[in-house]
């Protein structure tokens, strides 16, 4: 009987909490809600040490925080969320720690596949970004299944960066830009063979820019081209650095580094980040219009390497 009353009270508190949260988000939505927030989930191990727990417990606590934050973002109306789950550089950590993260990811992906209806209810689409070939086969297969299972959901898109680094992403983009231009140059020379002056024809192609690498050539080969640039990057644990995350994409986004460790992050950190973003938004919009940045042009990429495992269409 007491247990039932306790459960009932809990349910009531949850509903009241949800209602108040939605009221808060309504107030926030008077200003601009960020279209894309990226998170660097820093501090799980320190959290475990702080509470005398095993490292695995720290990562699990981090996962609980992640679910809360994703829920808040979805309720607030944030369309795209990117999570820096595991960096290429994180492979340098102790094997036990790496294995903890991998096991946890696999476990949660399998749960997700079982709870497909719940995910569908929230309208969440999940996409994995990174050098997935560096991950074990079970994880790769699970990631592909999750991506396929959520492909039709449209409310919120979550990009999970695994085995990712900006250095890899940019290198991949540069490499493929060079291949494209080499191909263009070959085409130009083939075309030129039908003319008298080969050099003149090649020069004409160069003037048109088909053989010269431009900004858009590099951008179209970026793994994260499937999403708009982030409006905010939130890194927890007070560390003020990007750690090789979305370097190309963060040219004008707001950086926020609360001192809280990732498992300690709460609603108010998110709210504060959004308020900060809203303060800068009008200035950033003015700059973007001046530069006529192609923020809303999403390409439909072809999968040419392990870097991108899923295409997203408009």
């Amino acid at each position, binding site marked *: 009987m007491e247990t039932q009353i306790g459960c009932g009270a809990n349910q009531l508190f949850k509903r009241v909490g949800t209602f108040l949260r939605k009221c808060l988000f309504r107030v926030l939505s008077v200003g601009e809600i960020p279209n894309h927030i990226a998170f660097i989930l820093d501090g799980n191990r320190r959290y475990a040490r702080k509470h005398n727990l095993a490292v695995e417990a720290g990562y699990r606590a981090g996962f609980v925080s992640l679910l809360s934050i994703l829920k808040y973002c979805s309720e607030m109306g944030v369309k795209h969320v990117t999570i820096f789950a595991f960096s*290429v550089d994180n492979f340098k950590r102790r094997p036990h720690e790496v294995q903890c993260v991998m096991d946890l990811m696999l476990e949660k992906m399998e749960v997700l596949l079982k709870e497909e209806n719940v995910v569908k209810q929230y309208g969440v689409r999940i996409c994995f970004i990174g050098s997935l070939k560096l991950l074990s086969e079970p994880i790769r297969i699970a990631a592909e299944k999750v991506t396929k299972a959520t492909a039709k959901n449209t409310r919120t898109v979550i990009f999970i960066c695994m085995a990712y680094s900006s250095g890899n992403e940019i290198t991949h983009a540069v490499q493929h830009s*060079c*291949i494209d231009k*080499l191909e263009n140059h070959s085409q130009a020379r083939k075309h030129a063979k039908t003319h008298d002056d080969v050099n003149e024809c090649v020069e004409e192609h160069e003037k048109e820019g088909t053989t010269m690498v431009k900004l858009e050539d590099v951008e179209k080969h970026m793994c994260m081209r499937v999403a708009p640039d982030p409006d905010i990057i939130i890194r927890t644990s*007070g560390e003020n650095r*990007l750690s090789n995350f979305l370097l*190309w994409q963060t*040219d004008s986004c707001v950086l926020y580094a609360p001192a809280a460790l990732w498992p300690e992050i709460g609603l108010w950190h998110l709210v504060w980040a959004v308020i900060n973003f809203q303060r*800068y938004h009008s200035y950033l919009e003015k700059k973007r219009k001046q530069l006529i940045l192609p923020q809303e042009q999403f390409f439909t990429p072809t999968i040419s390497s392990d870097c991108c495992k899923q295409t997203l269409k408009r």
Partner: protein
Amino acid sequence: MSFTLQFSLPSRPLIATNTTTLSPIRPVTNLRFKPAPPLSPPSLLIKPPLCASTQQRQLVVSGEDELKSINGAQEENVPLPVGLWRESMPKHVAVIMDGNRRWARLRGLPVDSGYEAGVKSLRAMVELCCKWGIRVLTVFAFSSDNWFRPKMEVEFLMSVLEEGVKEEMESFLRDNVRISVIGDLSKLQKSLVELIMHVEETTKNNTRFQLIVAVSYSGQYDLVQACQRIAMKVKDGVIEPNDVNESLIEQELETNCTEFPYPDLLIRTSGELRVSNFMLWQLAYTELFFAQSLWPDFGEAEFIEALRSFQRRRRSYGG
């Protein structure tokens, strides 16, 4: 690039607690240095040299080697401010010098006064870097995006740059300072480009300190131009597409002009929490410090705070 692992102390909040003041009070620096021993032939300077280890008049000495050894010896003897450790000083500091216009507006002055005050701050910072053994300072003087500012303002900025370089040329040579300029120089006036090339050539063998000035620069521009160079090499058959890797990209970036291309510390003034397309690739593991002070108010005290914050940080590079 050398670095030291830092064990973390309680982290400081992202936003520094400095407050913008209308009339900043710069702390008086007590300097205790041995004067440079006179060599032949000495001559007195009118104004203090850029990388002086003393604010008093200093004897100019002839002979490059003697000067370099004197400078080196003086740097080792220069005590650091309290709370700073020599072993943990960053090798390369980058600065986004934000807030000059706001500084002028707050004082009811024209924008030009803000930029002039900013130049003084820069001069002071170069001096501090030299004193404290920082090897490279990169300053974001003019972004690719800044071309959209009012024409008169842009022209004034360019004239400030040109005049500044001309005035300090002698100091650069005397103080063994190397100047490098990175950015898309094709948009600059011919006279300025020629001056830049001249100062780069004249100071290229200087080794004590390097000032890199980013003009008409952006991180994305730097990567695209590196990609263009690599594409040319691929087209000419010098390298294969599969040879393209991070190391190759690093070599083609404009920061290949320095031994330490990756900043250890990036400081942005005026409280803005973003990197604004500065460097990008090179900032992968750079510690970021956002100061509330406007750039003309960013002095020794603020710099010490930034360096202290840097030295408290735990740099794990993903490990």
